[in-house]
């Protein structure tokens, strides 16, 4: 009797972990889809899904770090586009060697992230206003700079490989490895470094963090710089994959990254979030897109479905939180 309640308690605790619920959802959808479309569970399809989700996973992880620190970064899509533009332009117009251009592109992304952090910490402008404004600013700069004309003529075999347009054996791609490396590094840092507890403290209660001697400004700056860095990585890889840089490249990806982070258990109120959850959340969104494609639903339904999924997830999360909160109160 006692062991069974202990077991259900343990099970409840596991299910309550960020990302676990959505992972279960993902498995269920996959099983259901395997009946609808025999193609769904093939390696080829999953190789596609993984290749497509690599970028979103990186952005979602960056977003999660910012969310844990109590912020939000709506400018990641625009930063990615600008970073990609920098590489494309340096290679095609100036003739930089690719590795140097890539470095410059990632650096540009990191600096823009740092700029977000500086505006937020120095001028005291709320996070979402700042990044909403820099989203418009960066996009605008890209538009003015390119005059709306895509940048082309920078592509090469190596760059295509890097962007995942060309595949390695077994259908694997370079971005998948880069993503895997960065996400694992992130998970290790969040597990073993004090940065993790400082970040959570700043996000949950900046006043307590300050009283404990945590340098809030530095943590905030670092989280935005990291988010900018990851957006920069995404941007330069995406430029390789697409072969052209449109001024509206990666438009709306910030919303998807945010959605993935929140589906993965990050809280907008700060302090909470899981990198693994964010990765699973991103994967879920890509699988939903994949399902829409495979089932022959017109692609115009995609925005609606994703918006609805976010709405359902946050509502469900809240309602189950209220219910389990009641239960806990009764038990205590």
């Amino acid at each position: 009797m006692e062991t069974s309640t202990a077991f259900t308690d343990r099970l409840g605790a596991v299910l309550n972990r960020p990302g676990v619920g959505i992972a279960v959802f993902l498995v269920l959808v996959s099983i259901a889809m395997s009946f609808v479309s025999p193609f769904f569970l093939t390696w080829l399809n999953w190789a596609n899904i993984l290749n497509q989700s690599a970028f979103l996973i990186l952005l979602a992880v960056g977003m999660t770090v910012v969310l844990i620190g109590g912020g939000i970064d709506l400018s990641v899509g625009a930063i990615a586009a600008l970073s990609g533009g920098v590489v494309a332009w340096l290679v095609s117009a100036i003739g930089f060697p690719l590795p140097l251009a890539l470095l410059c592109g990632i650096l540009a992304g990191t600096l823009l992230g740092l700029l977000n952090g500086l505006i937020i910490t120095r001028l005291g402008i709320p996070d979402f206003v700042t990044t909403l404004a820099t989203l418009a600013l960066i996009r605008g700069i890209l538009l003015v700079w390119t005059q709306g004309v895509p940048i082309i003529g920078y592509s090469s075999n190596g760059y295509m490989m890097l962007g995942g347009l060309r595949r390695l054996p077994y259908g694997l791609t370079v971005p998948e490895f880069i993503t895997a490396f960065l996400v694992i590094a992130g998970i290790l840092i969040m597990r073993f470094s004090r940065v993790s507890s400082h970040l959570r403290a700043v996000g949950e209660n900046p006043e307590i963090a300050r009283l404990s001697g945590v340098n809030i400004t530095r943590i905030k700056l670092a989280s935005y710089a990291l988010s900018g860095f990851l957006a920069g990585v995404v941007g330069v890889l995406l430029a390789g994959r697409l072969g052209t840089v449109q001024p509206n490249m990666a438009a709306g990806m910030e919303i998807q990254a945010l959605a993935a982070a929140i589906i993965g258990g990050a809280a907008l109120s700060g302090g909470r979030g899981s990198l693994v959850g964010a990765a699973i959340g991103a994967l879920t969104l890509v699988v939903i897109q994949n399902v829409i494609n495979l089932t022959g639903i017109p692609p115009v339904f995609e925005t609606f479905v994703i918006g609805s999924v976010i709405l359902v997830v946050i509502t469900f999360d809240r309602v189950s939180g209220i219910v389990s909160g009641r239960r806990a109160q009764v038990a205590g």
Partner: protein
Amino acid sequence: MQALLVRLLRIEGASITLILLLAVAIFGSLNPAFLGPENLAAIAVQSMFVLIIAVGMSFVLTSGGIDLSVGAVLGLSGGVTMFLLTLSVPTVLAVVGGLVVGTGFGLLNGLLVTGLGLSDFIVTLATMGVAGGLLQILAYLRPLRGAETDAFTWLSYGEVFGAPFPIVFGFLLVLACAALLNATVFGRRVQASGMSPAGANFAGIDVRNVRLMVFALSGFLAAVSGILLAARLASVQPALGQGYELQAIAAAVLGGTSLAGGRGTIVGTAVAALLLGTINAGLQISGVDPTWYQVFVGGSILAAVAFHQWSERYVDANALSDAASAGSEISSNPTH
């Protein structure tokens, strides 16, 4: 000089009106054709669509919330009306249909935010996706054009007392909403709720109810704007309304509405919306690349918020120093 600056900073909408006049003067001197009454009227009409949702946004911001879905709801409401027109539904019913959908989305936002205690930011972000997605589906089902009735076209091209209807409508709307926010019981409750949700609650204000109404109002105004815009464009594209929420926020904060809640000005917001329209048109007429407009929108939000924070500190510091002399007299007053 200092006192003058403090006083000027305190008058709502004064500084933004000055900036608007300055912008008109600059563009006029660059190109005298800019000052033609036809052109100015056209700019005003073009500005009305952002103006109307910016007014709604001002209410939401003043109540301490934010509504990112207004752009998408604007597009969807216009799309629904157009959709109904293509089905040969009478104009009045088609317009009512658009209004119901917009207000419904506003209510949905409000219910999710107040009923479940969800963050308004994420809720309206999600409904932005839902509404925007629905418009894409509508546009996929049927081309949303070529069904305008005369009555529908009149909404954007008709004239009242010799002035274009949208301008007359916008003017009346601003008057009504300014009165609503500044002179009525409801407006006072909106301000109190945004200024201090706990304080308002303990003073007997049903803050959740206030916020629900404000979200509904924002959705309704987005629908109004979307229907007028659909009439103006005579067609609805699947992406109609995208990015309008940003312009609405920009107009509201430029006008002097606080993002932190509690303080809002409808007149200032309206003037700022006209300013955004003027700059958009002015860039085009003076041959500047119009893509700069977006840079301006983004930059202006940052600048306006930073300026507000500075001016508040400035007014506070200077007002405190003169209150301190009077205040010491108050506190030294012996208590009996």
